[in-house]
């Protein structure tokens, strides 16, 4: 059973466009949602995260929009740059429940930004 789903599997945008990466989850106990960025040959690194008490989290060109009722969230990357080309993982954790400190990851979205 896949608890965190991501779409699309891959996405190509032109430099300067907004890339939208989608994520959905099934477990209502999840209340913390980090996005990790991974470049080839490296381990994933935390990019931005949101808690379920918020519906939006912004950090520069990266914004998470969160819809708790629909169990959906999305990562928007505005003014996309070639350096943003990477794999993005949506993850989820239930910090307030019994699954503290465990992250469940989606399968990832491969983003390519074309100059």
């Amino acid at each position, binding site marked *: 059973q896949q608890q965190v789903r*991501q779409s699309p599997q891959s996405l190509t945008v032109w430099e300067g466009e907004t890339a939208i990466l989608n994520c959905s989850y099934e477990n209502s106990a999840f209340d*913390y949602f*980090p996005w990790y960025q991974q470049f080839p*040959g*490296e*381990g*994933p*690194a*935390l990019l931005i*995260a949101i808690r379920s008490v918020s519906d939006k989290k912004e950090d520069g060109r990266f914004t998470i929009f969160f819809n708790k009722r629909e169990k959906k969230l999305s990562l928007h990357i505005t003014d996309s740059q070639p350096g943003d080309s990477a794999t993005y*993982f949506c993850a989820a*954790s239930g*910090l307030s429940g019994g699954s503290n*400190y*465990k*992250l*469940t*990851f*989606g*399968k*990832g979205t491969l983003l390519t930004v074309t100059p």
Partner: protein
Amino acid sequence: EAAVTQSPRNKVTVTGGNVTLSCRQTNSHNYMYWYRQDTGHGLRLIHYSYGAGNLQIGDVPDGYKATRTTQEDFFLLLELASPSQTSLYFCASSGGGAEQFFGPGTRLTVL
């Protein structure tokens, strides 16, 4: 910033072989994790630990053992390696908050 190192970075073994992957973190983090990453599957948790001598079962533990010898060191053991365990393995650590810091990965090939 968190520092997590893994060794070896690449490993080739044969079916039935014995493999140990090593991970060290120098941040005094309590939590350490082992994941495998496969195309089409993302990151899947194998085992994790919240301190020396502690071991918790992850989501895909079959065929793997792990041991946390110190706060810094976490090992993943494959005692009878199989081709299905060919994968990219990541170690991560966490200080108890939700952010995990990942190592650079070990690519394991089982022939």
